């Protein structure tokens, strides 16, 4: 009984509907409506993409791979996203003291926190799965039982990967709890695991490549099938919907429920101990007063932002993940060569690697600009907003400090990676310089656009950092248009570069992006003036 009560309250406490119903703030209420409309379009886009992908698979004669593909996409998404937010949801959460002082078993609290995390992410995963069912149904015209199994199992598909990610998060928390620098240990472990996840496709392909299959599509299909043979829940899902296999339906549902019970029996056992360790901070009390350095106000705010980021595993893993990936990309490219990297990405397709050189800044920006700290940082101030607000500095100076931090974070990584890629691809010096300038203006755009989104959808009354860093309207508004526009412009640069002088195109893009960055900067300054 108490399990459902806690779960219900957790959901209610972050429900936009509840805020809309009881808030008297008209602005807040209209923002909620805006967020619902935005989410509707986002889901519509996501579902449209999934349907089209299935239709594409059918056209290539790989319709039977769609269920496995659906299971794998949902599972990988569930695993990675859970991995990145377990720390904030299961451990180290704000209301820990309040909840643990109530008569709840530690297992109940941990289990409810997991179910809450599952239900909050179910909408995205379920909509993807249903969209793929629609795509599959258009082409395969299956019987009614396929629809029933597919929809029913879509609810269970994310459970096992989420449980695995949560258990790994639990192990990371347990390991790091024994260290002085708990956050750093947890962050490094999370980064390592996420990098492995991102490389898994290539690891699997390395196993498949033995017979030197030339056909790219066949290789993709093989990789998918191979993954399914390793990851059994994907196989059970596929068998259940393709062969109407009831035993596979029960297998997927049964294993999900059993695993949940086992994992939360284990997690519950040391839940209080881990949280106690994670929430404990000892003071060394050995500081000796020394000469202090003076910084400009903007730099002081930027430093504060840096400490805010490194003090939170959730924030750090999300904000700096792109930077870590892009550094790895740069180093690996230097070691194995630009052409080889292009060959791996294009799966050995006959392709002149030099024609994609103009896209180098966009490839780097895809990682570096994935998340802008400026989109989260206004909201992350939360209850501490009074500190900056009560200081004798205006909002513009605060904005400059926050923007400066994002530039400090992105520009060095962008420069390093572009240089690595340019050296490896033997890009001429003038072109390399242009790519560096292009990368710089893109960082400036990311910073200012992020701040516009961050200020426009600032939300200070959050319960958990995950709500700001991963699920806020500001982050969604920043990320998706930025990512899609970056990819489209990158592709256009390559195509136009084949027809016209690519230096000229890069130069035009530099001017356009700089102009956009300037417009966003002006908009953000206008917005902070009104605050």
């Amino acid at each position, binding site marked *: 009984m108490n399990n459902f*009560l806690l779960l219900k309250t957790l959901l209610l406490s972050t429900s936009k509907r509840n805020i809309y119903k009881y808030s008297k703030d008209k602005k807040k209420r209209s923002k909620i409506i805006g967020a619902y409309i935005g989410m509707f379009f986002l889901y519509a886009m996501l579902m449209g993409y999934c349907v089209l992908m299935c239709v594409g698979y059918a056209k290539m004669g790989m319709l039977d791979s769609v269920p496995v593909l659906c299971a794998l996409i949902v599972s990988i998404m569930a695993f990675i996203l859970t991995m990145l937010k377990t720390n904030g949801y299961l451990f180290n959460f704000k*209301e820990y*003291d309040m909840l*643990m002082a109530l008569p709840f078993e530690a297992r109940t609290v941990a289990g409810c926190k997991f179910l809450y995390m599952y239900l909050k992410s179910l909408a995205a995963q379920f909509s993807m799965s249903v969209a793929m069912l629609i795509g599959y149904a258009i082409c395969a015209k299956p019987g009614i039982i396929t629809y029933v199994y597919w929809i029913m199992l879509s609810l269970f598909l994310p459970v096992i990967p989420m449980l695995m990610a949560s258990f790994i998060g639990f192990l990371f928390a347990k390991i790091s709890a024994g260290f002085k620098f708990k956050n750093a240990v947890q962050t490094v472990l999370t980064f390592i695991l996420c990098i492995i996840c991102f490389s898994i496709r290539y690891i699997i392909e390395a196993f498949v490549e033995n017979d030197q299959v030339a056909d790219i599509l066949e290789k993709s299909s093989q990789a998918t099938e191979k993954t399914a043979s390793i990851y059994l829940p994907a196989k059970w899902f596929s068998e259940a919907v393709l062969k109407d296999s009831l035993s596979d339906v029960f297998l997927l549902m049964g294993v999900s429920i059993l695993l949940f019970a086992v994992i939360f029996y284990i997690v519950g056992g040391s839940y*209080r101990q881990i949280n106690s360790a994670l929430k404990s901070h000892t003071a060394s009390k050995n500081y000796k007063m020394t000469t202090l350095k003076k910084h400009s106000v903007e730099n002081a705010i930027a430093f504060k932002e840096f400490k805010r980021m490194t003090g939170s595993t959730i924030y750090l893993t999300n904000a700096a993940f792109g930077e870590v990936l892009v550094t790895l990309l740069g180093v690996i490219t230097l070691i194995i060569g630009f052409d080889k990297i292009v060959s791996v990405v294009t799966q050995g397709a006959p392709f002149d690697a030099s024609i994609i050189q103009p896209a180098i800044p966009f490839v780097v920006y895809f990682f570096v600009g994935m998340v802008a700290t400026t989109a989260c940082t206004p909201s992350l101030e939360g209850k501490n907003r009074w500190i900056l607000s009560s200081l004798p500095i205006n909002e513009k100076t605060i904005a400059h400090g926050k923007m400066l931090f994002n530039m400090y974070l992105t520009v060095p990584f962008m420069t390093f990676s572009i240089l690595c890629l340019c050296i490896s691809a033997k890009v001429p010096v003038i072109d390399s310089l242009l790519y560096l300038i292009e990368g710089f203006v893109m960082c400036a755009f990311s910073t200012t656009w992020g701040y516009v989104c961050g200020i426009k959808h600032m939300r200070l009354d959050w319960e958990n950092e995950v709500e700001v860093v991963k699920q806020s309207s500001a982050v969604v508004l920043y990320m998706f248009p930025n990512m899609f526009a970056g990819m489209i412009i990158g592709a256009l640069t390559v195509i136009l570069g084949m027809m016209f002088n690519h230096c000229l195109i890069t130069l035009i893009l530099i001017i356009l992006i700089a102009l956009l960055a300037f417009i966003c900067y002006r908009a953000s300054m206008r917005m902070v003036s009104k605050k």
Partner: protein
Amino acid sequence: MEEKKVLEIKHYSKSYAEGKKAADDVSITVMAGDIVGFIGHNGAGKSTTIRAVVGVLDFTEGEIFIDGHSVKDEAIECKKVTAYIPDNPDLYENLTGIQYLNFVADVFNIDVVSREERIKKYADLFEITDSLGDLISSYSHGMKQKVAIISALIHEPKLLVLDEPFVGLDPKASFTLKEIMHEMCKRGTAIFFSTHVLDVAEKLCNKVVIIKHGKIIASGTMDELTEGHSLEEVFLEAYGDE
């Protein structure tokens, strides 16, 4: 008054990963009807001890019993008879005050009539009845503190544990809380609270425990400890030249 041990802390110690001790061999007994003030400077180990008592903080050395139940082995039984008010209550900001109080009442399985009666009584006393329908995010710190206090009183606990309860409360609310504490004490509730306000402790408590660097350096009834001096003088003397 019934002489019954409600809270018994026996040789409790809490060490951190680096081997430093936040609490070192702490032993405290709180009887039914006692109001025990727990005083010490910042970082002395008050909150660490309090959080262990209410089952929030894990500990390995020593034992803590509430109403005869072990906090380690029978955590739920202990929590059923305990109420805790942290120094800075983190409540669910996006629930209304009444939704939060109803949640706590549900957790303690309080019948509808009793919960309505108690919420109304205490909300009226703290003068926040009109605001209970608003989101907690719109409350001031003091109002949140009042909601946390009401939530702690809903199930009529045998042990009330408070960490700096008067911080953020207006003078009227502070007075009301002190009155409620007296009333509960008369009914046999044991109250254990930390405070820096020595005047309040002196007027409110019948027993005092002083903690320094994780160790209890003085404890006893108010009369035994003060012997005609003020609590402030006793406290400063106990802390020596610090």
